[in-house]
């Protein structure tokens, strides 16, 4: 019994070591090779890594930052775009996986420092210094909530600021559900200004502009840099009693960046601080979201770079990417599945040998599955940074449950007489495993692996949120741009890959499952 426990413990150690050791080793090597220190002989070779969240504005400004850094030429530039939301992209910055990205002062104080009382760039900079980070002065635009009315309404009623809305109770409004709910949205705004309107309805943000322009409502909530603001004939009302928190865009960077690459940092400050106002940002967003420009082209236009006009349209550029993304996706699925099988099989067999420990193990693997995939990916960042490695680790963990559970079920549900017979014949542990248990349980085990494979194809699309590549890249970008074609360009190949993998595994069954057992699970005589 004690021997059994020790063996199982050994299996667990082997499995976990296989999983984490190379990653940790790699982290150590990276940490040694890339000192977060002032300019050294290494500095020239170490790129400036620019990150972005996964929405249009963040992509566009990140591209602008990357291009300026390229023009300075102090260090090569690596683009790590589309890293999900604040949690992931900030995690990447904090763990040193990226050097700089654009965030907003309100987000820095609320989501990162978790102290809304810290306002003002100097105060933020002082607090961030303790974390080894720094911020630039505001770039000019602010991505905050605002209220907008039709120009005609504004002229007719003489509306310029939100306080003036309080006099007009006849107005109707349509607000995004989030804005309607949040205390820094409509509830707080109404109290702050003493507003009263005839009717308020809840409407998806994408539809509110249309509702406003068609005259169905008079008042909507907007983000101050919405691309539509550059096109629609609307007026954004001034927040004259300063209700909305400040969400001024700033560069958020590792404190080492200005020391390591002073010329790059200076250039970024000179060319960006105070240079992008709300209208400019809205225009750039519109160029991408409404005119179908690429982020690169919008950025090049802002920087006045020549040759920006001769660029491939977005969709054709994407079609070219599909081949590369297919390969990336296959690697994500293939490697994580192989790792999951290598770990899951021994874990399942171990669980079958020692029932009590097995139950604990199955529960642990089950709990792993309850963590939302995106959260699991985010948890990997502190340990493995961003990119393929953390994605592979998370996907492998995620694929474990069906493999472990089916292996366990397959081995424990074998006919007792067949198991007894193996004992009477004095088959050794390995002989029993190889000749009897694995072949008899193969149908069930393969079913688990198939389930894991197909699930992984789907889950792997989330890898893009932490820079893992694959079809998810198209889906994440498509979501940011609200571009259904682009989303489908990622989703359809992923679905096809799931089908192909399913068929491939059916063929693999012929190699793995003994002939007499195929199509007749449990047919034991």
């Amino acid at each position, binding site marked *: 019994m004690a021997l059994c426990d020790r063996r199982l413990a050994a299996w667990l150690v082997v499995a976990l070591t296989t999983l984490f050791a190379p990653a940790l080793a790699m982290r150590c090597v990276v940490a040694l090779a890339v000192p977060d220190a002032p300019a050294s002989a290494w500095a020239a070779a170490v790129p400036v890594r620019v990150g972005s969240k996964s929405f249009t504005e963040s992509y566009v400004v990140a591209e602008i930052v990357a291009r300026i850094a390229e023009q300075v030429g102090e260090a090569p530039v690596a683009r790590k775009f589309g890293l999900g939301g604040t949690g992931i992209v900030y995690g990447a910055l904090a763990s040193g996986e990226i050097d700089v990205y654009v965030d907003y002062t309100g987000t820095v104080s609320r989501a990162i420092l978790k102290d809304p009382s810290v306002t003002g760039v100097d105060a933020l900079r002082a607090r961030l210094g303790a974390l080894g980070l720094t911020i630039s002065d505001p770039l000019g635009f602010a991505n905050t909530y605002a209220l907008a009315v039709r120009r005609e309404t504004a002229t007719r009623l003489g509306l310029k600021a939100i306080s003036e809305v309080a006099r007009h109770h006849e107005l109707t409004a349509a607000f995004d559900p989030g804005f309607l709910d949040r205390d820094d949205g409509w509830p707080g705004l109404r109290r702050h200004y003493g507003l009263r309107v005839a009717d308020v309805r809840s409407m998806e943000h994408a539809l509110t502009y249309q509702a406003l322009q068609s005259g169905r409502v008079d008042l909507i909530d907007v983000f101050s840099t919405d691309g539509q603001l550059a096109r629609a004939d609307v007026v954004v009302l001034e927040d004259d009693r300063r209700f909305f928190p400040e969400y001024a865009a700033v560069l958020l960077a590792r404190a080492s960046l200005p020391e390591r690459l002073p010329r790059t940092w200076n250039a970024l400050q000179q060319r960006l601080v105070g240079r992008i106002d709300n209208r400019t940002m809205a225009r750039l967003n519109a160029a991408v979201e409404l005119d179908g420009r690429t982020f690169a082209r919008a950025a090049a236009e802002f920087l006045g770079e020549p040759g920006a006009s001769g660029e491939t349209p977005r969709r054709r550029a994407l079609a070219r990417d599909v081949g590369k993304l297919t390969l990336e996706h296959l690697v994500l699925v293939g490697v994580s599945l192989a790792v999951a099988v290598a770990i899951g099989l021994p874990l399942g067999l171990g669980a079958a040998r020692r029932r009590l420990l097995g139950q604990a193990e199955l529960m642990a693997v089950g709990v792993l599955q309850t963590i939302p995939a995106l959260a699991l990916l985010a948890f990997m960042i502190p340990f493995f940074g961003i990119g393929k490695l953390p994605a592979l680790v998370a996907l492998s963990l995620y694929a474990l449950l069906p493999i472990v559970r089916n292996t366990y079920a397959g081995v424990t549900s074998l006919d007792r007489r*067949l198991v007894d*017979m193996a004992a*009477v014949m*004095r*088959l*050794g542990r390995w*002989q029993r495993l190889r000749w009897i248990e694995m*072949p*008899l349980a193969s149908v069930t085990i393969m079913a688990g692996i198939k389930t894991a494979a197909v699930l992984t194809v789907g889950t792997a699309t989330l890898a893009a949120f932490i820079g893992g590549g694959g079809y998810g890249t198209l889906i994440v970008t498509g979501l940011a741009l609200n571009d259904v074609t682009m989303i489908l360009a990622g989703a359809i190949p992923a679905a096809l890959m799931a089908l192909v993998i399913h068929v491939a595994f059916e063929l693999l069954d012929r190699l793995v499952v003994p002939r007499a057992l195929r199509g007749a699970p449990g047919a034991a*005589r």
Partner: protein
Amino acid sequence: MIALRDVTKAFDGRVAVEHVSLSVEPGTTRVLLGSTGAGKSTIVRLILGLIRPDSGDVTVDGVRLDPATRGDILRRMGYVVQEGALYPHLTAAGNATLPARAERWTAPRVAARLAALTELVGLERGLLDLYPAELSGGQRQRVGLVRALMLDPAVLLLDEPLGALDPISRAELQTHLVRIFRELRKTVVLVTHDIREAFLFGSTITVLDGGRVVQEGTFGDLARRPAAPFVAEFLRAQAPPPEMSAYL
């Protein structure tokens, strides 16, 4: 010699075998006779060390059966159960030669042994490449017997080996087995609820009821001097009605 001394075994509080003592001399055949649930199979599983007694002990050739001695003792035992308990993913030959391959016999040695045994049990060689699902009940049972005999064990334990066969195959295989056991001079423990089988095989018959030994003796002893009403009832229940005997 196989000996059980005052063995009791319960499963989840339900007694399967209670204070059973019996011994089987080398080279003899012992039949364990009784209804379903009488404890017959439990005794076989105890002798094989697949389960351990709650009290009492099992010895084989004077050695007490425990986890340390079990491997050595099993080396001398062959086991056959109802319908053969063949591995469905292995061919008849694969099943039959498994014990020899586990012992790492050379291929020619395995082949020679397989040829000898298939002839002994009357199994057609052409059937060796078929899977269990493709064999008849009697053929499966013969493969199971070849497997049990593969390492030439001194003891054969047979748990209702013919239970699932049709009457003709059953009678045929019964005759065959009696001859084989006599020729090979094995120590045999055979579990059955069939009195005809008990009569054919058993020099000594142990009758079990509710986990206890009710009577031990030859068929003649049981028939003429039943030790309990159960024994008489059990024999009578399976005897053909007198009117029927007139026709046979």
